[in-house]
């Protein structure tokens, strides 16, 4: 790891300087993670008085449970939908904004502020807009002949949380895509234009390849967002229902542990999720290290 040539001497002072961060890290991150790892191997009785070592039984049970597997697949579909839609819409808007140089800043101002809206609020607002009796979107759909009721229809409930999650994330992606587009040298685009490459060809042969670092970065960030941050969106609106239709992996950790009080199973689920985040973070950082070479 990089370090400066010049610095200060001393051991006690730097230790005291890192201590606050380390104490909090150990207390609230590393210890709980270790606890989850340990608890995953035990079955605890409901009162927490005794527990029994069961080896990998919790994990085996987890992957034998059709409801868990269903939420696994559901999370993947949800993550792919949110990431795909939020990135595609943001890219289209960023490409457009990048064309109208003079007004780009004005459009940016109008498009970035949903970033500041909490995921829970985004959920509540879309919950309202799609409410079968008071929501204007539901009303329009009814006029178009589509019966909308996310209280009863699981697919519609999932579509609701996807819509809210996408809406909130567009501004973030837009900002990064626009910054990425603006850093592409204009001379490159101009040279291609002189060689009679139209906007369409230029997009596929120059813009998109040069945008790939941004795209990849956003892909990881969006997946992490879709898998973890959308807990609030779901909890504040559909509460995982109807009948599990919006229960993602993170929501299930919460409902198994906090509502169902099944600590062993919840811990095992936590460990599976940890493995998932570690995988994603590693991919992200390996790539960032490599990107410096570009």
């Amino acid at each position: 790891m990089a370090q400066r040539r010049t610095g200060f001497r001393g051991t006690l002072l730097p230790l005291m300087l890192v201590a606050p961060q380390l104490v909090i890290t150990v207390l609230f991150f590393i210890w709980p993670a270790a606890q989850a790892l340990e608890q995953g191997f035990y079955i605890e009785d409901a009162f927490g008085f005794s527990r029994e070592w069961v080896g990998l039984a919790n994990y085996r049970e987890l992957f034998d449970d059709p409801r868990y597997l269903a939420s696994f697949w559901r999370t993947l579909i949800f993550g792919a939908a949110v990431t795909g839609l939020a990135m595609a819409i943001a890219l289209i808007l960023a490409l457009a904004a990048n064309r109208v140089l003079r007004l780009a800043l004005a459009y940016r101002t109008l498009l970035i502020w949903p970033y500041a809206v909490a995921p829970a609020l985004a959920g509540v607002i879309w919950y309202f807009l799609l409410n079968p009796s008071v929501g204007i979107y539901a009303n329009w759909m009814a006029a178009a002949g589509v019966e909308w009721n996310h209280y009863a229809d699981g697919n519609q409930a999932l579509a609701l949380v996807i819509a809210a999650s996408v809406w909130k994330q567009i501004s973030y992606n837009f900002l990064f895509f626009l910054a990425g587009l603006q850093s592409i040298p204009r001379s490159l685009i101009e040279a291609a234009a002189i060689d009679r490459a139209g906007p369409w060809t230029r997009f596929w042969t120059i813009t998109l390849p040069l945008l790939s670092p941004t795209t990849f970065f956003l892909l990881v960030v969006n997946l992490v967002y879709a898998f973890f941050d959308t807990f609030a969106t779901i909890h504040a609106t559909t509460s995982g229902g109807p009948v599990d239709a919006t229960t993602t992996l993170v929501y299930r950790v919460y409902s198994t542990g906090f509502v169902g009080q099944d600590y062993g199973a919840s811990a095992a689920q936590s460990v599976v999720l940890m493995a998932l985040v570690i995988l994603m973070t590693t991919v992200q950082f390996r790539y960032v290290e490599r990107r410096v070479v570009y």
Partner: protein
Amino acid sequence: MIERRPILDFLTHLLLIIGVAAVCFPIWMTLVASTHEGSRLARDPLPIWFGTNGFETYSAILVEGTNGTVPVWLMMANSLIMALGITAGKIVISLTAAYAVVFFRFPGRMLAFWMIFITLMLPVEVRILPTFDIAADMFKPVRSLWDVLSGDVALSAWLGYEIKVEIPKLSLLNSYQGLILPLIASATATFLFRQVFLTIPDELVEAAKMDGAGPWRFFRDILVPMSRTNIAALTIILFIYGWNQYLWPLLVTTDADYTTVVMGIQRMVNSGEAEPIWNEIMGTAVLAMLPPVIVVLAMQKLFVKGLTEQEK
């Protein structure tokens, strides 16, 4: 403009206007709904323009709350305390940690760096229950360690008589410390400051040392002032992060007096038997998003800087 393509220009603007309208419309409807009476919202045709009940809605929720919740002003105050606490905490401990890692060579430096890095891989969502346990009983690790090392036996043998040490329980539940402390570890902020510190020229450090500046003086008079735009940009991002916290406040506060506004709105929506009072819920939503949105719009340049810098 690379070449003149009037039709494409027109389509571009059309697309952007549709995009802006689609993105802004949900907020428009939120504002509209908060200015109508609850009964009007369910009647056809659904309103898309402002009503006249706005003042009543906002004064009612701010002073009394809705559906039996605590007043929204209290939720806003709680959110503000939490957001400012998290922001200040993250910045202070990240600045000092980055300073130590970059400017000192001390045993355990790499270990410290990796431990901070690991926090990136453990978002609160994946360690919900055990983190709650720790917040409910802060000295649990110390107690476990004491038991594992048979501290009582060792101490009794050393002292020569039987002794039993009771390590007390310290709970963070239902307190501002509980809302703030577990969230202030920050790998991203630490890495950002580390990057900034690494770009400071060696000559400057040498000069400061030559002029007799000690480590503390150097930190306070040179390093912190030199990082102030980074600190400002990060403050915006962290304020939004802190204000928008949901899961953690939901877990650590059972006492309604500590409800934050982003989390409290959920209690209004899922109010059990009672029908949700939509105009008041939407009014609360407007109030809840106001502070972070104002921060983003008022300090757009710093905000964009703060956001894009985290990528590095």
